[in-house]
């Protein structure tokens, strides 16, 4: 510092001070609304996780035993409908009426459960996605029946699978029940021939659905402006990659897809049904809580019954008609053996 002059020092001080003051001036002149820094620190908002925990009302072992006699080994009903209870109880009774999950799932089976988790911005109250407790109970029943592995999957059209699993609330219940969520891996969509198809001869289907020992289809019953209703067969849109193509000849193509995927059991969640603005919904006024679960190994029959919840005839739905034509199941509710169970009260 031998060459330092007073002038140079003062100059240096002046510049340093002006920098300090300038900086603090800038820092203080900003709009001091809490808006600024505070909001940037907010985590990315996600739809609020359902806090209302639906009380578990699973039937006890004795209740289940009591339900079983109605389901004799050779005379299982075609369709079981349970009404008026908590979602878990509805599922448990409906499945028991069909002969129990053991009828569909064997020890060590690899099970895929396919709920509807079509978007990542709706909670279950809006009836756009399958009731999480319905899915959770199905997972539990599969594991009780000895399944080796139960995975739950859907390929949403809004958002990616993992965010939809989370926001729908399905992930929480499935993990609690001991199941796994299968994040969609695009590698697993494989070009698949559909031998029985009348129109959709080839399609990219999610491999695990084809390789699984058992596929359990868990649609939520809701409005759709082209198909009229989204039910079991329409729910299978979530295992293929190119969905827009399906809309061309929807009824027949859904029936073609059903012939290849062939779920062992279809459980229609009608705890809440969406009457309008489907499949995405978003207004509680469009939702009707009817606490109903329909179960059947016959996907056409399950869909047929579910259509009546909306005041429609099964043959009003093009995919039911196509399914009938292809011999995928029955739609005549009058000739079916239907077991109706009142769970509540």
């Amino acid at each position, binding site marked *: 510092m031998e060459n330092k002059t007073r002038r140079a020092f003062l100059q240096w001080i002046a510049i340093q001070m002006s920098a300090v003051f300038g*900086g603090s001036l*800038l820092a203080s002149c900003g709009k001091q609304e809490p808006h600024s820094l505070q909001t*940037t*620190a907010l985590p990315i908002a996600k739809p609020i996780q359902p806090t209302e925990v639906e009380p578990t009302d699973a039937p006890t072992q004795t209740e289940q035993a009591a339900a079983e006699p109605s389901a004799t080994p050779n005379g299982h009903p075609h369709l079981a409908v349970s009404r008026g209870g908590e979602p878990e109880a509805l599922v448990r009774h409906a499945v028991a009426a069909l002969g129990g999950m053991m009828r569909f799932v064997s020890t060590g089976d690899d099970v895929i459960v396919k709920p509807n988790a079509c*978007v990542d911005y709706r909670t279950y109250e809006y009836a756009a996605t399958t009731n999480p407790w319905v899915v959770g109970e199905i997972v539990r029943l599969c594991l009780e029946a000895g399944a080796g592995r139960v995975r739950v999957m859907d390929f949403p059209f809004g958002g990616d699978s993992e965010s939809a699993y989370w926001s729908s609330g399905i992930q929480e219940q499935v993990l609690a029940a001991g199941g796994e969520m299968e994040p969609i*891996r695009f590698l697993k969509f494989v070009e698949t021939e559909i031998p029985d198809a009348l129109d959709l001869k080839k399609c990219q289907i999610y491999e695990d659905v084809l390789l699984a020992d058992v596929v359990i289809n868990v649609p939520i019953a809701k409005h759709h*402006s082209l198909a009229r209703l989204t039910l079991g067969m329409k729910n299978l849109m979530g295992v293929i990659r190119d969905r827009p193509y399906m*809309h061309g000849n929807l009824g027949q193509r859904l029936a073609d897809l059903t012939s290849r995927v062939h779920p062992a059991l279809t459980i229609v969640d009608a705890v809440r049904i969406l009457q309008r603005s489907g499949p995405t919904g978003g207004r509680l006024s469009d939702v009707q809580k009817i606490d109903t679960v329909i179960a059947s190994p016959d996907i056409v029959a399950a869909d047929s019954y579910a259509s009546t919840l909306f005041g429609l005839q099964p043959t009003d739905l093009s995919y039911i008609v196509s399914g009938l034509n292809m011999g995928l199941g029955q739609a005549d509710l009058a000739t079916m053996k239907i077991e109706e169970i009142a769970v509540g009260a």
Partner: protein
Amino acid sequence: MAPDLKKRRRLFSRPWTSLRKLIQALALLSFLALFVVARSETPGSTTNLFLRLDPLLALVNLLASRAFVAGAAVALITVALTFLTGRSWCGWLCPLGTILDWIPLHRWKKGKWTPGEGWRGVKYALLLLTLFAALLGGSTLLIFNPLTILTRGLAVGVWPSLDKLVTAAETALYRLPALRAPVLEIDALLRPLILPPTPLTTRASALFTSLLIVIVLLNLFAERFWCRYLCPLGALLGLMSKVALLRRRIEPGCVSCKLCTDACPMGTIQPADDYASDPGECTMCLECLDDCPLGATTFTPVFSVDPSRAYDPGRRQVLVTLGAALGGMALIRTVDTELNHPYGLLPPGADADEFYSQCVRCGQCMRACPTAALQPALTEAGIEGFWTPVLIPRLGYCDYGCNACGQSCPVEAIPPLPLVLKQEQVIGRVEIDQDRCLPWIEEQECIVCEEVCPLPEKAIELELAEARLPTGEIRILQRPVVIHDLCIGCGMCEYKCPVSGEAAIRVYSHGSGRGKQGGRGRRHD
């Protein structure tokens, strides 16, 4: 360099250099880690930290938008660091600087051409031009800021092409049955954190990657070519460093061995000037300190203004750049961006009147956007909006359940709205092209746009219409109609429209009425 001196280049014999290299590596790794998690649940205010540390971004934003964003005060840390220790940001922290250090192409230098000292003035000219343009409301020149070049280059250049490479490799290997399980395991490690879980489309990746590559290739002519001659942030920090506290000094013991001159990555140690260096160029890398065999190089507190160099900006440069900025802005502003660019859709909540002044062109929102709806504007926003984010619904839709872009913006050019407010922002105006829409031209059923509309009260209604088929048969069809009062222009319909090529339903920019009231009111209606 003599071989016996090379032996001294061991870790502990070069403590300062080793420490600097360690910190450089940590800083670059932090930058990359924050870049990667920017598309996760990590708060945007954390993942944009490096951008907020950049004083040039903060200063230009302040000048151009005339509003101070409190979050940008983080840049004062860098300012304070510079006043204390000179351009240590450049030598110790800048992720682009570290990358340039790690790719020392100058060692393969073939040609004889070396940029003259005068080239150092280029960065000051660029800085002055940037600042004067900012005073006039233009932020376009921030495309030359090192952190925006790096963030944008990674977000829309390197990362999407990395994703394509990995996907291609995975798809090829997945065909072999024996490799399926390991491929799936690797895929599960990579997605969704590092690579996107769904295939995304990004355009002009080659352009943005090339810009990075060019900057690296410039190292062929001189070590840290970018930092020496071009970097506007380096210029800003360099001007501050002229009065920095800690500066390099040569003690009397110097024997003119020139080791420091050879070691200096910035080439600023001048034998002709008694081995003095320009603190505006020195990045405080401390190579010379470790290299000096006699301890004649020291870094000590200095209380003075360092003498001006020939390449430092003078009155003439100031006047010339001011004139250039005035002329440039006048030329750019001859066109009304909104009128000329009907597809220049802004991110949700952005203020159409101010956005091109506020946006710092960093590309952080494009990294955060999970659907790749936000892409760098090429022609959609004119020169003024060059490389600002533009929403291209055909490539990606604005997810109704996401507000990541606003959370990640370092200067709140995209406001950090809570999700419920973001869901009300009107991005554009949607129109159906009845010459392309399937139920209109082919008498074919299609309700996809209505189906995917995420609004609780759908902004697309289906009307029943009678269509006459070529056979003369009359068919009842549903045809989509847009309800403009409800629509927010998220682009889900355009994205999912099954018509090939251009969609039959499109989102158009609707001018400066958008989103200003934070709701659905639009002046143009």
